[in-house]
């Protein structure tokens, strides 16, 4: 696709009748050098929005998952509500929140939207992880005199940890990608540069650099979290 567009159109006589002017390459180091300041600040905003959103989502999801776990009857409604929030398009979610928060509070708008979005993934995986703890394990812990609190922290959560962390990874990577939608309220991290490139007469180097950075950021987070999971669950090493 890139070739057909970049190459000049040549008439049968050999005369060039049309060319892309000026050249609009997909990537140049020149762009990266000239815009390193913009790239860096967009990247930092992107990381901030992602980390804050996921952390807040974790803080909210944890008690929700515990409630759903302890009171089975509430599991349906909790998953249902977070499921509906998940189905609502992110664009619509931002559209709901933005008018209520003043236009100055763009960052808060984006974070609220991202938190609501990450909730389902986190709650679901926490719940599935906790429910996956074998009854035998729980039984033996009870036999050893573990109360409900100690059982949760010392037995159930550690056993559920790999599933919970899988959820955190999916939520984080999705959030990195979703931050870009924040452009509609003017706070989209690297998405800001993607759209600026688009509006700047399809400035390809800008679009591609910002896109690649976003994907790389997501994959970097994923790698980091998978290493953290390995460190946190030394007992599962060598098994998987």
């Amino acid at each position: 696709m890139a070739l057909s567009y970049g190459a000049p159109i040549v008439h049968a006589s050999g005369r060039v009748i049309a060319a892309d002017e000026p050249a609009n390459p997909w990537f140049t180091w020149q762009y990266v050098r000239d815009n390193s300041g913009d790239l860096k600040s967009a990247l930092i905003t992107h990381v901030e929005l992602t980390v804050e959103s996921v952390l807040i989502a974790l803080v909210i999801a944890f008690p929700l998952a515990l409630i759903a776990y302890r009171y089975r009857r509430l599991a349906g409604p909790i998953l249902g509500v977070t499921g509906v929030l998940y189905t609502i398009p992110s664009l619509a979610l931002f559209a709901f929140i933005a008018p209520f928060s003043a236009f100055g509070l763009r960052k808060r708008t984006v974070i609220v939207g991202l938190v609501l979005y990450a909730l389902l993934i986190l709650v679901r995986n926490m719940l599935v992880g906790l429910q996956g703890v074998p009854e035998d394990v729980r039984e033996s812990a009870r036999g050893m005199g573990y109360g409900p609190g100690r059982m949760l922290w010392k037995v159930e959560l550690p056993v559920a940890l790999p599933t919970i962390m899988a959820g955190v990874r999916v939520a984080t990577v999705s959030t990195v990608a979703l931050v870009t939608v924040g452009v509609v309220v003017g706070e989209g991290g690297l998405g800001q540069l993607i759209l600026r490139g688009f509006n700047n007469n399809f400035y390809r180097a800008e679009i591609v650099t910002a896109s690649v950075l976003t994907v790389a950021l997501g994959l970097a987070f994923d790698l980091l979290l998978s290493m953290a999971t390995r460190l946190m669950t030394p007992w599962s090493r060598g098994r998987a």
Partner: protein
Amino acid sequence: MNLLDGAVRWLNDPLNWQGPKGVPHLTYEHLYITFFAVLIGAVVAMPLALVLGHTGRGGGFTVAVTNVSRAIPTLALLTIFAATAIGFGNRATIVALAVFAIPPLLTNTYVGVREVDRDVVEAARGMGLSESSILLRVEVPLAVPLIAAGVRTAAVQVVATAGLAALVGGGGLGVIINDGFGQQDRPQILAGGLLVAGLALVVEGLLALVQRRVTPGRDRGRLLRRRSGGAATDHPDRDVDHRVEDEERAVTVP
């Protein structure tokens, strides 16, 4: 509450229901984009998933596709395709969204075929069915509930993201939201949000009904929970839900 009144007033204004930027036309455009994106996604993903599922190869491949696709922002693909020869507008949107329809279709079809009882497949082979007949007459019919779940997930996801097309010169209901942000017209933003969310929920509901119809009763409880963001696509490392569901099934259906 003023804001909500404003949004309701916007929705009641007949002017907003007429012409190329009217709600009916934008809804039509939204659904048109969605339909073709899912169709193209299915044409690409399903044959591949059927073959992979039948031969039992490529499990790692489908998981990798799903994981990488999750890291790609829709906005990035939309703008990149718009900057190619495809041009901006609805065509670029359809191609970009088709890419995102592929992972759920691929994963669910693959898992659906994979999960068909091996004894059944062996029996079919013993009866002298050819490999292609086994796939088309045994495995595919048995995989229909999961394939339907994949179509549902893909369609809902595409409906949800199709709104972003408005940012890159495409159509659909996102136009209302985008114009609203451009004019700082809060009631319109909210009205647009309600329309996009409503459409997503309606599509989700309708496809849930379709999925229900094609799912045999005994599998319903197990399979219907496999919804958007559900088991088949949620776990990059391992298929936790499968194990849990199998245990549940083992208890309830002795």
